[in-house]
C-alpha cells in the first residue's frame, strides 16, 4: 500500500496525557518544528488544576493544542482534528474537543483495566461504541518505545518515559515536520546525559519510522508554509512577550525595571521570566503579598524607576487601595492583571475576561486609570511598551489586562527591529532655582516627576487630597472638585495620543460591527472572516485601550446599524459602551473558562445580523 499525501490548509492537533507524560514539552517541540517549517500557528496549553494529580486520573490530564496552517492562523482552534491520547484518562477528558470524524491516536499499552478504571471508564471505549465515527489508531507506544530504547541500556522507567518522543516522532511523520530541529534540541538539552539523549532520540526515531514503515496510516498530511512578511521570526508565548516588552520599555526609557509581585497563577510566569534577566538591571522582588508588591512598585516609581507589579484577579482586588494611591499621587506605574476565571478563587488555571470593570472601577472614590489590553501573545510586547509610554508621559498608573489564555498560548512573532523602538523620555523635573510645585501641570495635565536625589526638589506627596499646583494638603471644596475633574480629564486626554480605532470592514458597508477587546481577537477575526466568506457584511474592530477609548469610538459605533460585543464575561465592555454612547450594543457572553470558539461566534454573528 502506498502512502498518499493529502494537502490541507489547516490542522489542529491536540496532545493529551498524564501530568507526568511530558505533553507540554511534546507540544512545544512540535510547535517549534512547525514554526520553522513556516506555518502560521497558535497554541494553547491546558494544564490540570492539580500539581500532580494521581497518575491516570482525569483531573491529572495535561494537554497541548496547536493549530497550524498555510494561511493566517488566529486561534489554537475550537476543536482538534487529531487527538493523541497517551492514556484512557486523556481520551476521556479530551474526546469532546475532537471534531466528529476526527483522528484519535491512542497509546494502546495504557488501555488496561486499571487505567480504564482510574479514568472512570466502565468498559473499554475502544470497544463499546464510544469511538464510533472517529478514525481510531491504537498504537502500542510504550512497548515499542521500550523495545527501541533497549539498546541504549537505560532502565525500564527511563525507557518508558521516552514514549512522548515516540508520539512526537509519529505525529511529526504524519504532518511531515522536519526532524532536525527536534534532534538538535534533544542534543542541547541532554548533551550532558548521553544515555538519556540516546533514549529520547531512539524513541523519536522509532515514532517517525513507525509512521513510515507500518501500513497503519494511509496518508500523510502536508500543510504548506504560510505566506509571511519577510523578517526573522520566533515562536513566543504571551508571558515571555510581556516580560520582554517591559525590558524593552526599560531600555527605551533608560529607567531600570523594577518588578514586584506575589506569585499567583497565571501571572507567576512573568515573575519567573523577569527574574532570569538580572543582567538587564531588572530588579524582581517576591513580596509578602500583593499589597506589599503594589506598594513596593509605587515606592520604586517614586525613585524614578519603571515600576511594575503583576498579578491575577484576587491580587488585583488586594492592590486596588494602593492603585488609588498611585492615582492620587500621579506616579507612573504599571499594574499587570493576568485574568483568570472568577469570582473568588474560581478556576485558577482557566481563562476569563472578568476583570475589566474591576480595573475601571475597583477603587473607592473617583479614581480614573488608563487600561490597555493585549490581543495576542506577541502583541503583549507592544502593549507593555505602549503602557509604559503612557504611564511615563502622563504620570499615571496604567492597568495592563492580559489573561491566562494569552499568557500561556504562543504564536510566531516577527521580531521587531529593537533599534527602531521609539525612546521614552522620562523628563525628570530639574531644579530651576524657583520654587518647586509638585502639582504644576503641563499641557498633558501631567505633573513633574521629581525624584529623590535631586537637590532642591524635596517635596511630600501622599493619599490626602492635594491642592493643585502646590501639592499642599487641601480640604478646599472647589479644589477637590477641580482635582477630581483634572484626574478624569488627564486620563481622558490620553486619547489624543492614541491611534484611532481601526475597523476591518472589507466592503465598507457592513451591517454589523463586532467589537472586541483582549484575547478574543483571534476568535473574532476567524468568525468574521467566515461570515464574510458566507457573504455576510460584517466588520470587526478591536479595542486595545479600554480607558480612554479611542477618540473615534463613538463615530465608529454609530456607523453600524448593529453592534455585537463578544466577551468572556457577562458583558462588561458592553455596559461601558452602552452607557457611554447609548448604542444598543448586544453582548455575546460565554463564561466557560476557555477562549471563545470561532464557531460559537458564527452563530452569534448570524443571530445579530438577523435579530
Amino acid at each position, binding site marked *: 500500500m502506498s502512502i498518499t499525501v493529502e494537502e490541507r490548509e489547516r490542522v489542529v492537533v491536540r496532545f493529551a496525557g498524564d501530568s507526568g507524560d511530558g505533553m507540554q514539552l511534546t507540544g512545544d517541540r512540535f510547535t517549534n518544528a512547525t514554526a520553522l517549517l513556516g506555518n502560521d500557528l497558535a497554541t494553547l496549553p491546558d494544564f490540570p488544576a492539580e500539581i500532580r494529580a494521581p497518575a491516570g486520573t482525569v483531573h491529572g490530564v495535561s494537554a497541548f493544542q496547536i493549530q497550524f496552517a498555510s494561511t493566517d492562523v488566529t486561534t489554537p482552534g475550537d476543536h482538534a482534528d487529531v487527538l493523541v491520547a497517551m492514556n484512557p484518562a486523556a481520551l476521556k477528558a479530551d474526546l469532546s474537543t475532537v471534531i466528529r470524524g476526527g483522528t484519535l491516536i491512542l497509546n494502546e499499552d495504557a488501555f488496561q483495566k486499571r487505567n480504564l478504571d482510574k479514568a472512570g471508564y466502565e468498559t473499554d471505549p475502544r470497544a463499546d461504541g464510544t469511538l464510533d465515527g472517529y478514525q481510531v489508531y491504537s498504537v502500542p507506544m510504550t512497548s515499542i518505545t521500550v523495545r527501541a530504547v533497549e539498546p541504549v541500556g537505560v532502565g525500564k522507567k527511563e525507557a518508558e518515559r521516552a514514549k512522548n518522543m515516540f508520539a512526537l516522532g509519529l505525529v511529526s511523520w504524519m504532518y511531515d515536520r522536519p526532524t532536525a530541529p527536534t534532534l538538535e534540541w534533544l542534543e542541547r538539552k541532554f548533551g550532558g546525559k548521553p544515555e538519556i539523549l540516546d533514549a529520547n532520540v531512539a524513541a523519536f526515531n522509532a515514532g517517525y519510522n513507525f509512521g513510515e514503515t507500518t501500513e497503519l496510516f494511509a496518508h500523510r498530511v502536508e500543510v504548506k508554509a504560510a505566506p509571511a512578511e519577510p523578517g526573522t521570526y520566533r515562536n513566543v508565548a504571551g508571558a515571555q512577550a510581556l516580560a520582554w516588552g517591559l525590558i524593552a520599555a526599560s531600555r527605551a526609557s533608560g529607567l531600570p525595571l523594577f518588578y514586584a509581585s506575589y506569585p499567583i497563577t497565571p501571572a507567576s510566569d512573568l515573575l519567573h521570566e523577569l527574574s532570569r534577566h538580572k543582567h538587564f*538591571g531588572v530588579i524582581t522582588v517576591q513580596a509578602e503579598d500583593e499589597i506589599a508588591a503594589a506598594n513596593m512598585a509605587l515606592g520604586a516609581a517614586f525613585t524614578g524607576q519603571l515600576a511594575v507589579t503583576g498579578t491575577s484577579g484576587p491580587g488585583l482586588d488586594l492592590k486596588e487601595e494602593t492603585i488609588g494611591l498611585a492615582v492620587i499621587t500621579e506616579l507612573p506605574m504599571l499594574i499587570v492583571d493576568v485574568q483568570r476565571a472568577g469570582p473568588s478563587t474560581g478556576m485558577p488555571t482557566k481563562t476569563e475576561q472578568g476583570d475589566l470593570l474591576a480595573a475601571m472601577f475597583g477603587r473607592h472614590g473617583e479614581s480614573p486609570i488608563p487600561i490597555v489590553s493585549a490581543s495576542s501573545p506577541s502583541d503583549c510586547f507592544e502593549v507593555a511598551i505602549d503602557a509604559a509610554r503612557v504611564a511615563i508621559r502622563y504620570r499615571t498608573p496604567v492597568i495592563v489586562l492580559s489573561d491566562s489564555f494569552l499568557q500561556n498560548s504562543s504564536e510566531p512573532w516577527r521580531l521587531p527591529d529593537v533599534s527602531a523602538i521609539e525612546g521614552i523620555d522620562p523628563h525628570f523635573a530639574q531644579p530651576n532655582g524657583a520654587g518647586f510645585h509638585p502639582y504644576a501641570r503641563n499641557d498633558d495635565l501631567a505633573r513633574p516627576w521629581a525624584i529623590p536625589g535631586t537637590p532642591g526638589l524635596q517635596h511630600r506627596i501622599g493619599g490626602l487630597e492635594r491642592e493643585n499646583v502646590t501639592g499642599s494638603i487641601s480640604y478646599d471644596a472647589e479644589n477637590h472638585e477641580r482635582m477630581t475633574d483634572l484626574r478624569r480629564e488627564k486620563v481622558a486626554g490620553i486619547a489624543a495620543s492614541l491611534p484611532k480605532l481601526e475597523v476591518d470592514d472589507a466592503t465598507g458597508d457592513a451591517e454589523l460591527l463586532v467589537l472586541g477587546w483582549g484575547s478574543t481577537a483571534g476568535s473574532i477575526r476567524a468568525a468574521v472572516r467566515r461570515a464574510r466568506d458566507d457573504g455576510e457584511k460584517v466588520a470587526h474592530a478591536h479595542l486595545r485601550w479600554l480607558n480612554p477609548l479611542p477618540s473615534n469610538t463613538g463615530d465608529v459605533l454609530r456607523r453600524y446599524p448593529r453592534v455585537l460585543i463578544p466577551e468572556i464575561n457577562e458583558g462588561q465592555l458592553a455596559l461601558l459602551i452602552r452607557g457611554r454612547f447609548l448604542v444598543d450594543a448586544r453582548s455575546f457572553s460565554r463564561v466557560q473558562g476557555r477562549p471563545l470558539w470561532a464557531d460559537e461566534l458564527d452563530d452569534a454573528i448570524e443571530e445579530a445580523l438577523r435579530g
Partner: protein
Amino acid sequence: MADTLERSKKDFTSDQEPRWCPGCGDYAILAAVQSFMPELGVAPENTVFISGIGCSGRFTYYMDTYGFHGIHGRAPALATGVATANPDLTVWVVTGDGDALSIGGNHLIHALRRNVNLKILMFYNQIYGLTKGQYSPTSEVGKVTKSTPFGSVDRPFDPVALALGAAATFVARTIDNDRKHLTDVLRQAAEHPGAAFVEIYQNCNVFNDGAFDLLRDKTEGPHNQIRLVHGEPIVFDGGTRCVRLAANGRLEIAAVADTDPAQIITHDVHGPPSLAFTLAHLSQGPTEPTCIGVFREVQRATYGEAVHDQIARARERSGDGDLEALLTGGDTWTV
C-alpha cells in the same frame, strides 16, 4: 551617601506648620529628629521620609526631605520599594502602633526579616490617635476606649518581642521626652546598616495621657528605666537594682545588695537574640521597670545590597543585557 557639608535643623524643616494637638509627644520627637539630621551628613535630597496613616503619619510633611505619606499600614512596603530601587537613599519610616502593628504588622515583620535598610520609628502611644481614641493592639488588657467601653479583652503585642521574633537586626526603645536618649538611639539606628526598629514611647495627651508616666516622669523615670548599654552590667535605679541570672537559665530583677556580682548579666546586643528577648519580657512595660536603649544589633547584608549585588554579578557573568540577543535567543527562522 554622607557628605561633609554643614547643615542645620532648618535644612530639614519644611514650611508646614505641625498640626498635632498641643502637648502631643510627637512635637518632641519631631524636634529631636530635625535637630539630629544634620549630624548624619546626608543631604535632605538624599533623605526620604515615608509614613503611614495616623497622627504619626503627618511627620513626613514637616521634614524638608523627600516624603511619601502612604496609606494605612503599608509604609514599610512602600519604603522597601524606595530603598531597594535606590540603595543610595537614606530612608526613614515613621509609623504609629496601630499603623505598624495592626494593619501593617505583616509588612513590618517582613521588612525586618529582609533587613531592608530602613530606620523605622514607631510612635508607641498605645492608642489610635487619628481616629479619635480606639484601643490599639498595644493597649493593655482592660483598656476602656470608644470601641471597648467595657474594656479590651485581648492581650497586646510587645513590639520589641515581635521585632525580635521577626529576626530584626536592630531593635531599640526610647522615650519622646528624653531628647538625649532619643537622639542617642537615633544615632545608633542610623549607623546600623539594615532595618532598625525603634519603638518610641510617645504620650498622646488627648486619648491616653500619662501612659508612660512611670518612665517619662522626671522623678519616677530614673527608678524605672533599665538603661541598656552594650558590654555593661545591667543595673538601674541608681545602681541599687540589677538583672541577674536565676534558676534554669532564667533572668530576674533583684536588688544589687542581694546579688553575687558574677550573677549580674552583662548587656550584649550581638549573638543570638535570646538575651534581648528575655530582657523584653522582664516586666510588663511600661507599668513596671522597663528596658530602654538598644536591645539588639547584629550585622547582615541588607536587602538592597544583596539585590544589587546579584544584578552586578549577573552583569559580570553575562554582560549588560542585550535586547536583540534576548529576542533572538532560542529558535528563530527567517522568511
